[in-house]
């Protein structure tokens, strides 16, 4: 099928084309996205539209109606985000038809993500579609294409290892903590630090719904701010070593010239814990936990080197799965395009059926007087059955081959149907 058969276009900016400081000026929250879509739908000639905006991409998917001008999506985006006008034009990428569908499927599968194979993006695509639906700009085309993209993404997750493993050091820290504890609901977690890594780590651990989550930082105000973001409590910084006897996991993401957790404090804590596990995840540089902690009973220390090695290993494993997922994308894309062809043929098929049914009903009506009343029902059934059987194969072929413009015109002439522009076909 030639590109462009599916009436879908995408225009966007992503981490591949623009740095964070540009991307963040182009991001939309859900309310802004709904407003942007509704206005574009009203003022442009889009028949359907969806806006996908995450921290790594802002993309508009739209089905332009007849008479839509080229560059409409770009100018609409530039109007909503004036910063676009200052940015280099190369940051925008465009695709249409099968290319646009392929792009959406690859995005949903995490193949286009900054962290290859990440699974959050599928949920973000689903949310973008919900927003478009609520704004009244999603129609049957987006319904089919988005649902198919999400199906392929689910299959990729189920049948390959594209999403397995970890994509960042804080995620690796959580993965390692899970090798010690299968459930955090009755575990207590302490996050040391309030920088970016600590913030990401705190959010990840908060998602595990631990029994208790504490944040501590040298600057108490920053600890309070992070704690309120992740619904945690704060722990007093001067008493941080005292936490070792109580908590099960410590995520230390702080830069300190001297270890925050010295050997003596760790040894005292290990004694009081009587063999209960204490997991120390030290992702700070320089290290904030005395490395001799490894010698203590029940104390496990994993430093940033070990966690980075894990991230690297997992990245390699995910890369090895890309070929399989790309094959699924192409297979799924072929199905989507075939489905689109078939659904494009549906109006013609329906018109032919309607026309033939009218003809049949007319002829049956005309002949009814030659038949006894008890035979009339048989006549009706017989003619209907004849028609169904005679036209079953041609209709199936028409659905499967899909009507490109010349073929549709030929079929219309063959069956004497009206042209789409309202003209009359031969013999109708």
């Amino acid at each position, binding site marked *: 099928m030639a590109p462009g058969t599916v009436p879908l276009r995408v225009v966007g900016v992503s981490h591949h084309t623009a740095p964070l400081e540009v991307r963040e000026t182009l991001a939309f929250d859900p309310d802004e996205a709904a407003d942007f879509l509704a206005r574009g739908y009203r003022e442009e000639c889009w028949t359907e539209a969806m806006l996908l905006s995450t921290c790594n991409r802002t993309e508009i998917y739209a089905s332009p109606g007849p008479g839509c001008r080229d560059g409409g999506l770009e100018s609409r985006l530039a109007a909503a985000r004036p910063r676009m006008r200052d940015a280099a034009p190369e940051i925008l990428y465009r695709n249409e038809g099968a290319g646009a569908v392929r792009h959406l499927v690859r995005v949903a599968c995490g193949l286009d993500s900054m962290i290859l194979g990440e699974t959050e993006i599928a949920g973000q695509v689903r949310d973008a579609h919900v927003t478009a639906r609520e704004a009244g700009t999603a129609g049957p085309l987006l319904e089919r294409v988005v649902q198919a993209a999400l199906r392929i993404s689910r299959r990729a997750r189920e049948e390959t290892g594209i999403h397995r493993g970890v994509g960042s050091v804080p995620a690796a820290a959580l993965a*390692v903590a*899970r*090798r*010690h*504890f*299968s459930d955090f609901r009755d575990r207590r977690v302490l996050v040391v630090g309030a920088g970016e890594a600590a913030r990401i780590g705190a959010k990840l651990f908060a998602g595990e719904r631990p029994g208790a989550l504490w944040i501590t930082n040298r600057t108490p105000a920053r600890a309070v701010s992070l704690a309120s973001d992740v619904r945690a409590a704060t722990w007093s910084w001067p008493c941080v070593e005292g936490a070792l006897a109580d908590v099960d996991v410590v995520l230390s993401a702080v830069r300190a010239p001297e270890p925050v957790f010295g050997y003596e404090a760790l040894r005292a804590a290990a004694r009081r*814990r*009587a*063999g*209960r*596990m204490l997991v120390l995840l030290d992702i700070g540089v320089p290290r904030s936990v005395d490395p001799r902690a*490894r010698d203590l*009973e*029940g104390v*496990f*220390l*994993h*430093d940033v080197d*070990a966690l980075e*090695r*894990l991230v690297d290993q997992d990245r390699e494993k995910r890369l090895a799965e890309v070929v399989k997922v790309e094959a699924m994308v192409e297979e799924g894309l072929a199905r989507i395009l075939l489905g689109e062809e078939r659904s494009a043929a549906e109006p013609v098929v329906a018109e032919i059926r309607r026309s033939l049914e009218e003809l049949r009903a007319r002829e049956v009506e005309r002949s009814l007087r030659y038949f006894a009343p008890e035979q009339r029902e048989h006549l009706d059934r017989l003619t209907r059955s004849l028609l169904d059987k005679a036209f079953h194969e041609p209709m199936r072929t028409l659905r499967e081959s899909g009507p490109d413009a010349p073929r549709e015109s030929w079929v219309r002439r063959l069956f004497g149907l009206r042209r789409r522009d309202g003209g009359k076909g031969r013999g109708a």
Partner: protein
Amino acid sequence: MDTILTVLNAILPALYGAAAVLYGLLLARDLPLARRAGTRLLVATVVLHVGYVVLGGVWAGRHPIADKFEMFSFAALSMAVSYLWVEWRRKNAYTGVFPLSLAFLLQACASLGRGERRELPEILRNPLFAWHSASAAVAVAALSVGAVYGGLFLVMYRLLKRGDLGPFTERMPSLDALSAMSLHAVEVGFVALTLAVGSGDLWVHGSPGLSMADPQVWTTFAVWAVYGAALLGRYAAHWGGWRIVALNLAGYAVLFGSLLTVGRVFETFHRFTGRP
């Protein structure tokens, strides 16, 4: 019926062996096919094994766990069932190779040692003996499962202590899950062992010619004491981690040693007249 029993006796070790191999492949290569095939094969094996035990009892016209080989077979079945329960509860099939290898060994011993089914002597027709032998088999199975997961806990503990974050530690259940699985199995085993000791004691006192002066009884008391100390440490002194697991493994070493040596040295599980 004898033919069916003979066929089942021959194929059960092969089925347990094949299931252990599939689970081994799953652990080593993470093949989804091995996961599906392993679980299905094991379920089929358990169904056949239940049929084998029931048919054996019906055919002999007595309870089906009357000698040490029948006890081994019942212990293998109990292990397979408890493993399937663990797999279902934990949604983790990577540990299957370990208990199933043990189940294979137990069933292989049972199948090789299976002789003609004879009439039971009068002394073993006592219902208390049936209770005693069945609960002893369950105890052996549960304590074996506890030892397997305890052993895995110690391996994981060492690997994580060394900072080894390779595929083994990724695929295994977490350390606390292994510890809990081992502990739960030991709890079940301890209760079953207590029942076996209690019913055995009642049986001995009610049967003239039997005596508690039996090496198997002494070692069983030793096993019971070690496991009792481990559980006391866990619940009274709140011990955790490798201390409990180490005690559990010590108890299992005594149990396994007694099963191997006492039976071999004294030729029978218990020193009494009228052995089966």
